[in-house]
């Protein structure tokens, strides 16, 4: 408390009559010896109402702050920081809007297997530099438009850290997720342009939680992954099969090394947890990886819908629920559609 604040408090206590006699007498003696204090107290005493006096003094403080500028003058670097923050926010918003506009709906299954192989190969190289990854991508201009610039950086960095650490300390499942082919990740689960509506803003958060709970409660394992052959190379068994059938030979790594204790069920719960924690970007990425790993498992749309709903995108949430048509989840999805549609 400043010198002035303490004195003010004392004067107000004295004027209120709350001060014990001994203290009051000491204060009075002080006043007799200090004409400045004595005059001031005499002046302040003119206002009989203490709350009004306090308000008067607060008004003086405020006026001084405005005049003095001590507390209103903003250092240049503060202004610069605020400015940078604004620019940063604007950039992120712009990128997000762009992403939404350019995205195509759930494209994971349309990815060229050759691309997939290429990506996996480049991932498997021990020293992957940021430069090469970006270059690799830019070699295919036709796909560039769907690549979000921000994601590109983030993911390149992921690749670098993965390569440099050798991913040896990561849990197997996480390792597998990190090794998932990048391009596929970028292309998958991007949404088509959906008209935003005003009611998108009015979301019942309970419905989103119900959706998440539903997704968590689904016990089915999406594909026969319990053998644990998939995750080591991040090439889903289902995909491997498919690609083998189509004549493309996929690199299958030493599956025996992997002791898989995970399942789609576990994965879905993990994603659900991310959504609940508000880690939307991570959740979105995890969903993309899930789709790559188990492209045939539609239950993930429930989580995607929940994720959108949590973020206030009602229309998108309904869109993903609609994707559950002709699946065992169709009936419940329709109920949720109704709930969200209000």
């Amino acid at each position, binding site marked *: 408390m400043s010198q002035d604040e303490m004195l003010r408090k004392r004067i107000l206590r004295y004027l209120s009559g709350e001060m014990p006699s001994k203290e009051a007498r000491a204060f*009075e003696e002080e006043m007799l010896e200090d004409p*400045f204090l004595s005059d001031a107290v005499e002046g302040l005493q003119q206002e009989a109402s203490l709350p009004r006096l306090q308000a008067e003094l607060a008004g003086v403080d405020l006026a001084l702050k405005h005049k003095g500028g001590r507390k209103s003058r903003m250092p240049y670097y503060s202004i610069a920081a605020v400015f940078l923050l604004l620019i940063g926010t604007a950039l992120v918003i712009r990128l997000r809007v762009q992403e939404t506009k350019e995205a195509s709906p759930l494209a994971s299954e349309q990815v060229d297997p050759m691309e997939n192989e290429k990506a996996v190969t480049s991932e498997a190289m021990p020293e992957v530099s940021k430069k090469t990854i970006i270059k690799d991508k830019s070699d295919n201009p036709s796909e560039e438009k769907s690549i979000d610039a921000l994601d590109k950086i983030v993911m390149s960095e992921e690749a670098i850290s993965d390569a440099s650490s050798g991913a040896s300390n990561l849990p197997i499942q996480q390792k597998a997720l990190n090794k998932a082919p990048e391009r596929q990740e970028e292309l998958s689960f991007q949404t088509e342009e959906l008209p935003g509506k005003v009611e998108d803003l009015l979301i019942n958060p309970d419905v989103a939680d119900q959706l998440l709970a539903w997704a968590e409660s689904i016990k089915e394992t999406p594909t026969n992954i319990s053998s644990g052959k998939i995750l080591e190379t991040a090439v889903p068994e289902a995909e491997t099969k498919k690609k083998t059938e189509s004549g493309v030979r996929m690199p299958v790594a030493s599956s025996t090394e992997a002791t898989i204790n995970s399942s789609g069920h576990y994965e879905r719960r993990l994603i659900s947890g991310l959504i609940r924690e508000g880690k939307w970007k991570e959740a979105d990425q995890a969903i993309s990886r899930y789709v790559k790993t188990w492209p045939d498992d539609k239950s993930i749309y429930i989580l995607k819908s929940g994720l959108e709903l949590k973020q206030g995108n009602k229309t998108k949430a309904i869109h993903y629920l609609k994707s559950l048509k002709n699946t065992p989840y169709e009936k419940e999805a329709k109920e949720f559609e109704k709930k969200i549609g209000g």
Partner: protein
Amino acid sequence: MNFIGRPDKNRQNLSDESLIKLYQTSRDKELISELFCRYTTLVYGVCRKYLEDPDESKDAVLQIFEKLFVTLLKESPQVFRSWLYTVAKNHCLMELRKPGNIPLDQEIPEGIVESGEDSHPEKKEAMLQYLEQAQQNLPEGQSQCVRLFYLEEKSYKEIAEETGYSLNEIKSHIQNGKRNLKNQMEKGGYP
């Protein structure tokens, strides 16, 4: 660096006079703000006493504050607090006397303020010793109030309850009684 609204610890620890010296070399107005903020309540109280009106008093505080930026570039008061009291009082008197504007600088003879003169412990002790013998020579109200306040160490409120005087009367009796005693002491060869 001083962020918005965050008081500078180093400045807070500087004496009034050091802040002024620093201001004279740096011309950093924040130093004057820091200085003036230490006395806002007192200055406002003085303005309120002389000008009575709250708005006029507030304006006067702001004007006094602004004057400091200029005045303190040239002047280095020995005791800023006493000096500020005189500046505040003179400003109010000038306001009351308007339009007879006299430049502020000429109005402040340094050291005119009777600040803390009586608070010197030896002088106070001498006065209290003298008080017991001399208080009878004072007019009744003064004698009574001085005795109750200084010798019996009662507060104004207690004196008011005992004597029936108003608080203002008590205050004035004590002030006048004290002044008379001082005069008597000086005449009687007391220090």
